[in-house]
């Protein structure tokens, strides 16, 4: 059966069908359409004003690769300049290979690249060390929680180092939909209330963050990378199978099979959630230790690191405690641990019953 004509240029033969609409397009037309949609997202939400210095969170994976590529194409039109910021979490066997991919990309696109490492920023704690510390409860490790929080801080630090005014990350629509599902399943009303919208404006001194790919489906991101022949690192993180997000991801895949617009519908639902005022997070203040944005006395980064240092890594995970009761004297972080510090069993019972719902 001959392939249909591209419905946009009517000249070339169609090479693909768009996942959401089923429209048949040839390669170049699809790429153009994709870029046009990202441009529309950025302009419609006024995400990146002209003259902005944009730090692109580059992990070497398909999303950030596509993001960097598209932004590089659109940069002249938007009037922004780009910097690549890569975060080294210290996961052996995974992150080094990904970083090699990022370096290749930076060289190919001639974009300045900065690498920030957890070990430097967070007192010698790498993700491997965190994973060792949180393991051994019999329940799954919570290292993904640490990684997420610390990575955002690391990105922020890296962006400041290069003098950026905005941070962009490559989250796509599927990521957003998974986040919504995950937050609902865990009953995280605070995050549900904060989510939605095209990005955070950056209160309290934090840099504004946005996600230009937010409305593009994951399949289209992969298709784009294929047609533009982009070189990216495609393996998943070593710790990914243990993350709760995996459940949400499986569910989303099934939902998309039943209804192709499921991811968009979820994002729409999330944007329209009406939560009770009591469930909304309190207005943010400043962390008493590092001065960053925090909704409690200690920001999540400080609280997590605190827990790690004390050998009670789950201290800051779970509702309502967050190390608030156990602040030590503020001071410079202690020197990196030289040996395996597995400490007493992580706080399965210590945090109390409230944790059971979150820590799994």
């Amino acid at each position, binding site marked *: 059966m001959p392939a249909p004509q591209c*419905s946009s240029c009517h000249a070339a033969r169609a090479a693909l069908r*768009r996942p*959401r*609409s*089923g*429209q048949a397009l040839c390669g170049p037309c699809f790429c153009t359409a994709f870029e046009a*949609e990202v441009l*529309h*997202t950025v*302009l*419609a*939400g*006024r*995400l990146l004003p002209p003259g902005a210095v944009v730090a692109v969170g580059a992990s070497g994976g398909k999303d950030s690769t596509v993001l960097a590529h598209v932004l590089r194409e659109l940069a002249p039109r938007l009037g922004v300049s780009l910097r690549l910021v890569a975060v080294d979490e210290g996961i052996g066997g995974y992150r080094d290979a990904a970083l090699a991919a990022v370096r290749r990309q930076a060289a190919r696109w001639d974009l300045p690249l900065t690498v920030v490492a957890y070990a430097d920023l967070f007192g010698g704690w790498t993700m491997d060390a965190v994973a060792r510390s949180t393991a051994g409860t019999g329940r799954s490790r919570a290292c993904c929680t640490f990684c997420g929080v610390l990575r955002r801080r690391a990105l922020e630090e890296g962006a400041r180092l290069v003098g950026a005014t905005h941070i962009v990350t490559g989250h796509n629509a599927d990521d957003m939909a998974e986040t*919504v*599902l995950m937050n*609902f*399943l*865990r*009953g995280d*009303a605070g995050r*549900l209330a904060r989510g*939605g*919208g*095209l*990005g*955070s*404006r950056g209160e309290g001194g934090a840099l504004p963050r*946005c996600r230009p790919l*937010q*409305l593009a489906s994951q399949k289209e991101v992969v298709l784009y990378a294929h047609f533009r022949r982009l070189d990216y690192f495609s393996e998943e993180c070593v710790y990914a199978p243990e993350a709760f997000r995996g*459940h949400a991801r499986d*569910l989303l895949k*099934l*939902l998309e*099979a*039943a*209804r192709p*617009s*499921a991811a*968009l*519908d*979820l*994002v*729409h*639902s*999330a*944007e*329209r*959630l*009406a*939560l*009770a*005022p*009591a*469930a909304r997070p309190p207005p943010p203040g400043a962390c008493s230790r590092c001065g960053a944005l925090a909704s409690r006395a200690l920001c999540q980064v400080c609280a997590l690191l605190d827990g790690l240092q004390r050998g009670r890594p789950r201290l800051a995970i779970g509702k309502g405690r967050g190390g608030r009761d156990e602040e030590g004297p503020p001071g410079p972080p202690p020197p990196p641990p030289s040996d395996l510090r597995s400490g007493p069993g992580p706080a399965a019972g210590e945090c109390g019953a409230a944790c*059971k*719902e979150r820590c*799994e």
Partner: protein
Amino acid sequence: MVWQVLEGLSRDSAKRLRFVPGVVYVDEGAACGQSWEDRAKTLTDVRQILQTLGFPWHIVTLEEVFALPPSVLRCSAQDPVGTVETYKVAVDSFLQQQRTLAAEGVRGSPSSAQGEEQPSQPCTQDPQDPVGPPPAAQTEALSQLFDSVKTLTAKEELLQTLRTHLILHVARTHGYSKVMTGDSCTRLAIKLMTSLALGRGAFLAWDTGFSDERHGDVVVVRPMREHTLKEVAFYNRLFAVPSVFTPAIDTKASEKASIHRLMEGFLLRLQAQFPSTVSTVYRTSEKLVKAPRDGCAAGPRCLLCMCSLDVDSADSATAFGAQTQDFSQTPAPTPRAEAGAPAGPCCAAGPGGAPNCWQGTRPCGREGSRAHVIEQLCYACRVNMKDVPCLEPLPPYILAEAQLRSQRPSVEIQEYLVNSDDEAPASGSGALGPPEQEGKEARAACGCINKNFFN
């Protein structure tokens, strides 16, 4: 639940309920493709159970939706305050009374026993019961309607909508002011997640909260929402509550067939692994309020689900979805658009939107009437309607009401319309500033014909 109500009303109970309930059973066999013989058999069993209750009962078939008046879709005035108080007292005592659950049929038939309550004078009606099969034309029309729907998800949603309308109508005709449904905690958690996945995030509080007043004079309440399915099963077994199994529209469907099935399977599996899942999701539903999004005034209501419309140009996901969805509809109307270019933009531009389209230029034909109905629906109902290729088989009351609403003066919606020259401020739209001239122009430039929002 019916059993519980029965107990609550009995003279021996400590706190007596003060209302007189009726029971309604909706026979959906035609939608599920059952033959009349099977349905008659089920009805006999149901009748037996209902007769032991001693309440007035009504058996209605789903085919009767074809005879409903359009007034079903209108939200009537609320009850006077007096009855609300009595209701509250009644419900309080009812809730404190029971510990576990009631004569809901086994999971296959969520509609089998739904009680209704009437706080005023006791009703002395005879049981209403069709003795023979409903008119074949109606059964045929119903099967045709359900066969024309492409996906099981849309079928289930349509079935729910029609069932709700029918029960509302029965309630209104017989003077009931409340409808109680037997949704358990587990069911509601599943419903919550399903609604989320269908795009009904704005209406979760109505769909899964304790009381649902969007229909105005009839309030839907869910007194069993604190009990899990397991408790229900135990109660039924321990107290030998009779129940009838009726196949539903999704019986024997594969797990991946519809979003409802998927969610159910997913939640129950996750519950096995993390035992607090269902209760966590349920607690989240308690944190939801019924307010519309900040800044949105009470606007027009959806034709099918009667919630305030949640579609406007401020919403990034909706706008984007509409943009990409228009591409999929371009092939069909393209020749028409070339032939009669004004026909396209006439639906879109202009302050009146659809009303102008009807009165003004040459008729858009079926496309126009479909666009017409679609634009009166909320986001989730629109997505469902995408799976219904042709709107003709829908029951006449829906189409009539759509027609009626479209011909109302546009003054009502004038203030919500955004002309392409005006810069109407978006209402509280969230993170990054008001939308967007360029967005609208980009969309208009796409030559969108079925403009789904008030532009």
